[in-house]
């Protein structure tokens, strides 16, 4: 039987199977490119960073624990690359201390948005994503585009799950304000 899970393919890559790595790249290239587009505007920069992400994935694949899910791991690699790219470009303000992380927050419940809601939101997000700071944009992209759970997003961003919920809530509020402002203007 053919192995189809990301984790089993990653296990084959770890053993030196180059074809398996090609399959992994095929599976994630579009996703990582879409993820990169939310942070970088220049197509050349996006292409370079996606290539850099897969290079890092290959170099560090043996640090991946095949008993865990592969997608949070690859998105973590991508997240680190984007943070480095944004730092180099200095186009985004990246705060050193994040006060959302300091205090305990009530555990945020995962909202059950319907598929229609998610599609509508994705359409809205495309037009207003740039009005959000990177720290709000990232969980929003992972939740609505990559369809990750709060727990998986928390693993990618290395945050408490409650902070993910709060950031998503704040991101939605900021977007709502931005959209309302545009409508009234």
């Amino acid at each position, binding site marked *: 039987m053919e192995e189809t899970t990301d984790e089993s393919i990653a296990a084959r890559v770890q053993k030196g199977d180059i074809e398996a790595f090609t399959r992994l790249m095929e599976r994630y290239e579009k996703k990582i490119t879409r993820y990169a587009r939310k942070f970088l505007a220049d197509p050349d920069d996006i292409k370079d960073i996606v290539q850099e992400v897969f290079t890092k994935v290959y170099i560090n694949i*043996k640090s991946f624990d095949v008993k865990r899910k592969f997608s949070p791991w690859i998105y973590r690699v991508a997240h680190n690359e984007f943070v480095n790219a944004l730092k180099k470009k200095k186009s985004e303000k990246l705060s050193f201390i994040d006060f959302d992380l300091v205090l305990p927050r009530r555990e945020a419940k995962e909202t059950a948005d319907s598929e229609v809601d998610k599609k509508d939101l994705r359409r809205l997000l495309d037009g207003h994503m740039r009005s959000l700071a990177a720290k709000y944009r990232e969980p929003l992209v992972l939740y609505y585009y990559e369809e990750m759970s709060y727990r998986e997003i928390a693993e990618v961003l290395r945050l408490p799950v409650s902070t993910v919920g709060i950031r998503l809530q704040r991101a939605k509020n900021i977007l709502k304000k931005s959209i309302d402002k545009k409508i009234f203007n």
Partner: protein
Amino acid sequence: MENQSKQSASQKIIAAVKSGRLKMRPKWHFILRAVLWLAGIAAAVLAALYFFSLLMFIARETGIWAAPVFGWRGVLIFLASLPWMLVLLVLVFILALEILVRHYAFAYRLPLLYSALAVLLLVVVGGILLAGSPLHRMLSHCPAENEILKIPPPNGNGGPPCGTGVYRDLGPRRFKNIHRGTIENIDGANIILKNRQLENLAVVITKKTRLPFGADLSAGDEIVVVGDWRGDKIEAFGVREIGR
């Protein structure tokens, strides 16, 4: 066109892999990194514990912890006497420990406040336990409280310095107005105090001296005296008995 460029990006990586220009890091690289990270945490824990317990030990040995009970003047003396370099070192290692620990899921899943409090608690509790152990006394070569009176001063009034190295530099000799020791005898309004350096100090008790409430001082009592040197005597501003 876009497809072509995407293809070439993946093909570039595969070509680099096949040619051997791009290689996977071996498993041992990650094991070594994890071990080094743990070693870093262990080193930060040990350093934070050592410096915090040293701070506690010095505060206790010199008697500076007793100064704040004598009001604002005591608080100022306490603040001026604290070894701030040691306090800074403790803070640096606590910060380093927090940064190193946040690498692990059990820490980053918690709010920063909780993990920082856990680190702080570990250092404070561990430091207090270590300060109570014989470690610093052994390293400093200082006599214990109950042994001071048994040791005769070798040359008249002055004895060997209590402590070596960092213990001597941070020890009682730094302070001009906090004196800890054991009462050798009481002569009228004067107390003869034998300190950790085995020196005999004359302490003058005046009407203004704040004495411990409800306690009669007698020879053999362990006390902390806060007061200025006046010539060859200490004019006591406050006296506090230890261990009662």
